[in-house]
Each structure stands twice: as structure tokens, then as C-alpha cells.
């Protein structure tokens, strides 16, 4: 009995159980994706093939990118209700100007990212609720999209079509793309030293300010990253569909939020997971159309199916958290 470590015995066990619960929770997105895949394999074994995955996951890439975009604002305790119409606007620009006048197209898209950065600054400086600002912006993006492309049409630039129809050997392109997106964003947000500051701005903004960091800057960076990934999402979407429509991205707003939450993220507190968000997006993409088609359920039920998955996974999460107590 020389030295006593105060509190070691009684507090270490709850802490390790908290760590266990966290591990379980971080496995949930992967588990739900696996479950959906098993269901698809059971209903239609032929879908589990190179071509099957290429087809089923085709639309998952833009959804995953939009989900990552949403994840950035959520990690700063904000919400972006305009990401869907923004993706639509980017799609319209991609199918028109980016093909016909590439320089103008690039300038417009970079300008759009700049607008996102300014929104971040505005929200921080005027202390506005991001939900209100982005809800307003969603109509602005929608209106601009209709101005750019009044009728469905346009055409994707050839290089983009070539990129999105790339067929690598053995592993389908969407899976590689998902892996790359998850890895890059995970490294950037979870492993770099500035990524810590970005997540910290959602965890405890006051502490960050006291340590001398600029919250204006973190907010601008987070919103600019949202804009950047929104642009990538819109371009990827047009690369797959080949032509655009002003309403093409409207469903993405809620899909992206659902993907972040499904992937283990939380609305406040800077708790997000890029890998989880990509898995969540894949799960939603698969569960929406392929699974329903194989189950002979009309596509009208897509949204309901997504809702059901969300409820099941969130319920599982609550159960795990409750067990932890």
C-alpha cells in the first residue's frame, strides 16, 4: 500500500464501457450497410457482382459527396437546408456553361463556393440561425438553376462523362470512389491538426476562442468545404445522368442529413464521422431503389424506406447508449 491511485478502480470500468459503447456505435453504420447488402444478396444473388454493384451504387457517389458536404456544416453545429438545390444549381451549370464555356463555368462554380464561405461569415458575425439562412438560400439556388437551365436538358462535358463511366478492373468504380472520398475526408478532418480545430469549434466554441482561435475562420472554412463538396456532388451527378434538370438535386438535402446521422454523426457537439457518413450514404442509396425493386415494392415507397432505416438505426443507437449507463 504505497501509493493509491485515486478513483482508479471505480471509475475505470465505466470509462471502458463508454469506450465499448462508442466502438459499437461506430460499427453501426457498417452493420446497417452489411444488413442491406445481405438482404439484396438473398433476394437477388446475381446483384452481388461487378456489374450489379456498378449499377446499384452508381448514384451513391453524388449522394456520398453531398453527405460529406452536409457533414462539414454539422461538425460546426450548423445545418445546411440548401445543399439539395445547390447540387441542382451546380448540375445545371455543369451541363451548360462548364461544357460550352469552361472558363465561365469554372469561375461560376468557384464563385458559388465563395458564396458558401460568405454565408458562413454572415452566420457567425450576425449570429443568425443557419437553418433560416440556408432555407432562404435554397430558394435562391433553385431560382438560379431555373435561370441557367429553364428546361431539362444540357449535356455533361465529355471529360466528366469519361471519368464517371470509368471501369477499373475487379472493383467497381463507385466502391473505389467511396473509399477515396472516405479516406481523404477522414484524413483531413480527423487526423490533421487543423481538422481538430474544426471539430473543436463544434465541441466547445468558447474554449476555442479562449485558446486564441478565430471562430469566424473555422466557420468560413467549414462552409467553404460544404460548398466545395456540394460542387463535386453536382458534377458527379451530371457525369452519371449526362444531362441536367433544375430540380435534379432537391431530394439530396434530407438524404444528406440522414446520411450524416445514420453514419454516427450528431447534430450538435462536433461529433461526426466521415467514414460513417459515406457508409450511411451508401446504405440509403442501396436501400432506396435496388432493395425495393428486388422486393417488388413500387419506388413510391423510397422515402418511407429511408425513413424506416433511419428509425431502426437511431433506435439501435439509443439502445446502445442506454446500456452504457
Amino acid at each position, binding site marked *: *500500500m504505497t*501509493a*493509491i*491511485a*485515486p*478513483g*482508479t*478502480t*471505480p*471509475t*475505470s470500468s465505466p*470509462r471502458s464501457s*463508454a*469506450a465499448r459503447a*462508442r466502438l459499437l456505435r461506430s460499427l453501426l453504420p457498417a452493420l446497417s450497410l452489411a444488413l442491406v447488402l445481405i438482404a439484396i444478396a438473398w433476394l437477388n444473388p446475381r446483384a452481388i457482382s461487378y456489374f450489379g454493384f456498378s449499377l446499384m451504387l452508381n448514384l451513391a457517389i453524388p449522394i456520398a459527396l453531398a453527405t460529406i458536404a452536409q457533414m462539414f456544416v454539422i461538425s460546426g453545429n450548423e445545418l445546411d437546408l440548401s445543399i439539395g438545390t445547390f447540387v441542382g444549381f451546380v448540375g445545371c451549370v455543369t451541363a451548360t456553361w462548364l461544357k460550352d464555356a469552361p472558363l465561365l463555368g469554372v469561375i461560376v462554380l468557384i464563385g458559388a463556393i465563395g458564396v458558401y464561405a460568405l454565408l458562413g461569415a454572415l452566420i457567425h458575425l450576425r449570429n443568425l440561425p443557419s437553418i433560416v439562412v440556408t432555407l432562404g438560400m435554397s430558394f435562391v439556388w433553385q431560382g438560379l438553376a431555373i435561370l441557367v437551365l429553364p428546361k431539362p436538358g444540357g449535356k455533361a462535358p465529355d471529360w466528366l462523362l469519361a471519368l464517371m463511366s470509368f471501369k477499373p478492373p475487379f472493383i467497381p468504380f463507385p466502391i473505389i470512389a467511396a473509399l477515396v472520398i472516405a479516406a481523404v475526408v477522414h484524413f483531413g478532418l480527423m*487526423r490533421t*491538426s*487543423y481538422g*481538430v*480545430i474544426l*471539430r*473543436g469549434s*463544434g*465541441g*466547445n466554441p*468558447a*474554449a*476555442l*476562442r*479562449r*485558446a*486564441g*482561435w478565430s471562430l469566424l475562420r473555422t466557420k468560413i472554412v467549414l462552409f467553404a468545404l460544404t460548398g466545395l463538396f456540394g460542387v463535386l456532388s453536382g458534377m458527379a451527378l451530371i457525369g452519371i445522368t449526362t444531362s441536367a434538370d433544375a430540380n435534379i438535386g432537391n431530394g439530396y438535402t434530407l438524404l444528406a442529413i440522414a446520411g450524416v446521422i445514420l453514419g454516427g454523426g450528431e447534430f450538435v*457537439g*462536433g*461529433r461526426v464521422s466521415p467514414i460513417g457518413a459515406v457508409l450511411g450514404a451508401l446504405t440509403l442509396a442501396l436501400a432506396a431503389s435496388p432493395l425495393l425493386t428486388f422486393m417488388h415494392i413500387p419506388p413510391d415507397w423510397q422515402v418511407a424506406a429511408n425513413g424506416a432505416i433511419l428509425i431502426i438505426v437511431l433506435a439501435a443507437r439509443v439502445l446502445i447508449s442506454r446500456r452504457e449507463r
Partner: protein
Amino acid sequence: MLKANTDIIRLNGAEKHFGAVRALNGVDFHVVSGECVGLVGHNGAGKSTLMHMVAGTLRPDGGQIVVRGNAEIDYSVARALKLGIRCVFQELSLCPNLSIAENTRINHPALTGLGWRRKAANLIAAKLEEIFPHHGISADDIAGDLSIGRRQMVEVARAFTVTRDPLDLVILDEPTSSLDAHTAGQLLAFVRRFVAAGGSCILISHVLGEVLQNADRIVVMRDGKVVATDAAKAFDRDRLVATMGGAEAREKIAAEIAAARPADSPIRVRARPARQEDGRELVARAGEIIGLAGLAGHGQTDLLLAIFAAATRRKTGIEVAAPVALVAGDRQSDGIFPQWSIAENIGIRSLARLRNGLLISPQREAELAEFWKQKIGIRTPDMTNNIFSLSGGNQQKALFARALGSDAEIVLMDDPMRGVDIGTKLEVYDLVREEAAKGRTFLWYTTETEELDNCDHVHVFKNGRIVANLTRDELTEEKIIQSSFGDAA
């Protein structure tokens, strides 16, 4: 040493107003290198405002800040950090979603590039080991998973880590409020070593003994002014309390409790900790104040929460015979509804009584709030203000008002007085005894031995078990420490 006895920082005539309230009224304050300055005063005396100025988080409305002889015009947090001045704030300022190493990185802009994670982890681990040997905290732990005491340990250790910027002056604002006696001792010993090596410290603490024993010089504040400055040796407890303007009431308490010893009143709570192997159990009668003591995190809070849960759902080993209310210890995360007004925060435990038909009657809510504002002395112009407009001590009073204003006959207190000034404490102690005399039962977990003087019975906890049951007459600090550290079976 040439640098000895030179000013690190000097504030001349510092002033700060918040609306009509004068928080600081022309304060002169300085710290020289190699000294530990104790700063005492009631909540609202202006200590925190003054420290925010030294740390650069608040700008003075008037007066001058001079660092090492240079007048600072554009003084800010970043500037303070560059000049080697840091602060451990009273409200915990770790990001709960980040690991300990990542939280360390936040305070060190220099921790970048390849391998920053390992560097940050080594930095904080080494400092924790230096200050709190055998701390049992890993640099990979997520801050939110740690107990409040461990979070405070991390925060203190983090303030003493050095990378690029120098480290000359550390402000410790209630650094021991969530630590048990053992770790608090480790911290204060480290502070002495730091000061002996030429560093400077400002120590703010409501535990006057800590300040008297560890500070070289003591500054007393009252009503936004410095009312006394003298060598620590020139003060004793009584003079300090008298200068602060607090009523010294310990002896009075002892006498009152002895007089108000309850007779054989009905048993309200009978509880046995989950890990208890022998037959000991906690029994609380109506009108009794029962203390739960021992080192922090040894099962006291768990038992309180179990009793709280048992009031609504049957639980083996615990019998509860009356409604229960809990005053949380971690008021920021467990006690306060941050978006709500003071009145709403008080009324939430009594909604059934505040109802008018199906809706909550704003009038009754306001009446309840106003009653407790008078009774417990919550210092605010308007009870409909947001709860965060109150100082820490007054927020805690609001939480007491929530519990005492309810129908609860049993009040559980989970170390609720941490970081609260002595004036507020004495008021709350009086209130607790008054309510106990009316027949309420209090179960009071505290890390401060002095508070146990208010209790009729004290149960000492170790490793989730009750290891000693002391009556008031047997109660001494030695006995508690002996039981907390003794190798009980």
C-alpha cells in the same frame, strides 16, 4: 537573478461595466515573477472579471495593462499567450468530443505537421504524470468520457505544457473545485514547485486554507475593488473572512445542529450500495442531513443516482419513502437548461403544481420564482432573464431553489457547492438546516470536509462501498482520510 521581483503584469485603474453594473471599479493589481498570488472574494466581487482581463478574454473599459514594463494597447488572448500568460478557467473548457491529445493541440498552435498527434500525446501524458502521478488517464481518452475531476486534472496539466510560447504566469481559477483532497494536494504541491522555479501563479480558491497555505501574497476583493493586499503570513482565516465581509458561522452551525437533533422520526431512505458486501447500509430519517464522504468518484454519486432512480422504479436494496429531488454537481451538463430563463429553470421540478388546466400558468411560475429569489437571494434584476445571465454561485442557488421549491421530501445533493463562494455557501447551509428542521431529509455528497460539519451522520465511501459510518461527534478530518485510504476489505 536579474529578473527576480520584476513585474510580469500590472493593471492600473482597471474598470469594467456590464450595463449598469460596475464589475470592476478602478482596480490596481500586479504579479511579480516567482510569486503565487492568492485572490479571494465572494462571487460577484470581480475576481473572474479581473482574471479575464489578465488573460486577455475581456477588454477593460478604462485603465491600463502593462506587461513587463510595456503598456499593451491591443491586448488579447493571442497576445497574452505569446507573452506567457495563461488561464485555467473555472468553467471547464475542454472540447468533449475530442481526445485529450487533441484538446492539448488546441492550446498549442505550434503542434502541427507530421507526428503532431504523438507529440501532443507525449506532452500531455508527461505533464499529467509530473503533476498527478498515477492519474490513470490516457491521452487517447475522449474528454467527454472522463469524470469531472479528471477533466479538471487534464485542464490544469494542459495549462502547464510548453511548446513554442513561454510560460511565466498561470491563472488557476478554482483549480481544485472538482478534485478530491488527494489530487488537490498533488496540484498545490506542483504549484509550489512551479513558483519555486521562478514561475508565477494567481490562485483563486473558495477553500481559504488552500490560499493561506500556498500563496505568498493575498489580494482580497469586494464589490469590484481590491480591499486588502498583504503577505499571506499576515492573514489568518478569521481576518480573511472578515476582510471579505463574510459571516463566520461554523461554531454557530455546530451548536445549532446539536440542538436540533431529530428524535426517532420515520425512515425515509434505506439504501445499500450495489458493491456493498457486508451488512452496512445507509439509513436516512426525516429531518436528517446525511453526508457522503471519501475520495471523489468512489461510488457516492452512483448511490445518489440509484436512490433517485429507485424513487420512480423499484430497485433491489433501496427503499425510498418520499418524493426525491436531485441537485446535480456538474451544473453545466446535468443541472441547467441553458436556453431557459431562471424562472423556468426553477419551475421544471414543480410543473404539476404550476399547471392551470392543461397549460403551465406563467403567473404561478413567476410567483414561485419570485418567492425563491427573495428566500435564497438570487441576485438578478429579472427572473425571466436567461439562466446564464447569473454568476456561477447564483446559478447553483437557482438549482437549489428548484429542488427546495418542489414537493420533494428527500433532497439528494451531488457535491453541489463546487466553485461557489463562501458567502453563498453559508447562505445555502443555513437554508439546508432550516429545511431539515422542518422535516426534509438531505443526502449530501461533498468533497469538502468542512461541509460535513452540517451533517448528522457521515458515511465514508471507498471503491463503491461504505467503509465507515461516523456520527457528528466522531467526525474529524483525520478519521475520514483514514477510512478513505485504509485498505478496507
